[in-house]
């Protein structure tokens, strides 16, 4: 299943607010792609635009070189940020209904719905109403609704929000599995550690336009060198403030992350650290995704 989603020059204005500002990016099949940005960056508006749920002032969305229309969207899966299910409808009926709206036959929808519910440990609850499920299980049913028809492209808005670590692992594994079968997976999240673990690539947007994009490994290995130093008894990293070419990026519980300019000798940094106290950790690290994100938004 090969696929390419092309978002080209999307613009959308709500009154004085520019929600999307000439936004363009691509997502390829077989990858899990993180869609990142601060609150109000335009992530949800972009996802809605892909599904035709918001009007556009300019731009277009293409799938495999064709403008996306009703026929293409039937082969997409969507999990909105605010979960969308009928609270009083039976779970099994609801999944079959949504599957059939995506073009599945009744028999296929029933079979696949049973299979997914069994995988999530909800096999015995097909006749229960959605509102009787816990938050995590509602999330699982919602994900099933998005994946039931084996979509070519699945877009999920905050699929990991509100889940416990087990739930995050479970849903994360499913997203990776979908991508491995050739599906194009794009999801938004503010949980950058999980995004870093799950995604091959990320797209970072702010104020409706693209800020940075690329493979996670490439982004992590790019930019200034990072040095993690821990000095016994030091909580403020005062020793590092006056070292030329060194910027304190983050101080967390005694661990200091430093950005080194080109030409800075790490021996000089080690010497400065020793003057601050006994050095217990001194190691070069690549950029974490949270750093990539923060630096991209600066």
């Amino acid at each position, binding site marked *: 299943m090969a696929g390419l989603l092309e978002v080209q020059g999307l613009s959308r204005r709500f009154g004085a607010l520019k929600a999307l500002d000439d936004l363009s990016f691509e997502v390829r099949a077989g990858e899990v792609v993180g869609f990142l940005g601060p609150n109000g960056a335009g992530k949800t508006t972009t996802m809605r635009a892909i599904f*035709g*749920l*918001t009007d556009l002032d300019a731009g277009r969305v293409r799938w495999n070189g064709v403008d996306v229309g009703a026929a293409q*969207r039937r082969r*997409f899966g969507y999990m*909105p940020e605010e979960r969308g299910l009928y609270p009083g409808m039976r779970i099994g009926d609801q999944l079959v209904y949504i599957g059939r*709206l995506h073009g599945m036959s009744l028999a296929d929808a029933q079979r696949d719905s049973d299979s997914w519910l069994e995988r999530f440990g909800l096999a015995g609850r097909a006749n229960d109403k959605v509102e009787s499920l816990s938050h995590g299980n509602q999330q699982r049913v919602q994900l099933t609704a998005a994946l039931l028809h084996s979509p070519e492209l699945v877009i999920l808005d905050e699929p990991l929000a509100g889940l416990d670590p087990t739930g995050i692992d479970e849903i994360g594994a499913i997203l990776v599995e979908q991508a491995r079968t050739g599906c194009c997976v794009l999801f938004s999240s503010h949980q950058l550690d999980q995004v870093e673990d799950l995604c091959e690539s990320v797209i970072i947007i702010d104020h409706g336009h693209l800020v940075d994009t690329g493979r996670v490994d490439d982004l992590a290995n790019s930019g200034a060198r990072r040095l993690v130093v821990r000095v016994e008894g030091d909580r403020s990293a005062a020793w590092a403030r006056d070292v030329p070419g060194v910027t304190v990026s983050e101080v967390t519980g005694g661990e200091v992350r430093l950005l080194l300019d080109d030409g800075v000798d790490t021996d000089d940094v080690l010497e400065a650290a020793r003057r601050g106290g006994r050095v217990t950790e001194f190691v070069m690290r690549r950029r974490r995704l949270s750093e990539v994100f923060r630096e991209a938004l600066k």
Partner: protein
Amino acid sequence: MKFFRYAVIVAVIVVVGVLRRWRRRRDGRSSQPRGRLAREYVSSDVGLVMGRELRERLRSRFYLVGTVVILIVVGAAIIIPVVHHSKNTDETIGVVGGLSPATRTWVMTTARAGAVSVHFVTLPGLADATSKVKSGSINFAVVDGRELLVETQFSANDVSTTASLAHAVAIHLGESNALVAAHLNAQQSAALSHAGPVPIVAVRHGATKGVNATSLIGVILIFMMLSQYNTWTLIGVMEEKSSRVIEVLLSTVRPVRLLAGKVLGIGIAALLQASIVVAFALVLSKIVGSNLLHGTATLEVLSTLVWLVLGYGFYCWVYAAAGSMAERQDQVQSLALPLSLPLIVGYIVSLTAASATGPSLLLKILAYIPLTAPFAMTTMVGFGAVAWWQFALSVAISLASTVALARLATSIYRRAILRTGSRVRLREFRRTR
């Protein structure tokens, strides 16, 4: 009435024809075999949405309880008048000194017309008659054909069976005695006693004294059902918006098709309930001998069904558009009240008109306004005061208005259904795209 019968048939054919033509135009597949087209339609997104709505409505407790309540109300409306009219009252009249067979026959015939059974008891004397009247074992006594003996004097406004019968007997005996006193021969006496009223001739044909009971029940049914099912549409659309399931649905179904499936599903549930109620009413009226099926009632039943469908078809779009502008229950309530005003006006005017001797000018005007036509035209039909072309004209106006309204409602729905936060107001559509 023949014209009217044709009008109803023509109206049904026109509605079915318009719907089929619309469907073919939308699908653009008029050359396909009918069976295949029907199957594809049922399995299309409109069919799926319609099926879900229908299934969920039929499963709901509200539907079942509502149907039972309507059946009880309709059953009561049919049975109570029958029971009231068929209730026989026994009256026992004591006779002292004899009573002519002709008088006895007259009394029994007169009493039977008022559903009263009369038994005569011959008594030996006045004392015995007085005793039996006092004890209540007889209602009153006729003494020597010249006076009536009652327990207490009847008041002027006493309309009890005993008082009415006693007054009638007293007048009849008085007239009979007067005829005897006038020494008329038998032929003259017979001519006088069989004197009938002169005929009353109406100068205006068609209009009857009051509206037919079938139409009256029809107006009540239409009001109940339109109120109920349109509120379902309103709440159903609002719930899809507030639960955000609308985003999932609209990611694969076009708004107009989603809305069409929804109103069709609820409409079929409404029609099914109406059909159950009408079938129940017809069967029950046949069993208990109600006059619901007599005369022109069949046409009035058909007219009621036609206007129930047209009324729902018109109002469902208004309520669906309103539902897309609300997100909470309290917003629904504030929207539902103004929307229900035309329904209430049409209903009240029609009920008020039904108690008059003929259709008022206001009723005649309202019969051509789509907002009130379901009630006013049904009442006009009940009066027998509508020609076939007037009925067809009202149907045509309603259909044309429904098409225009559906377009407007779909446009509002498409723009409002994904707008969350505060309630969307109509004036916002003028400045938003």
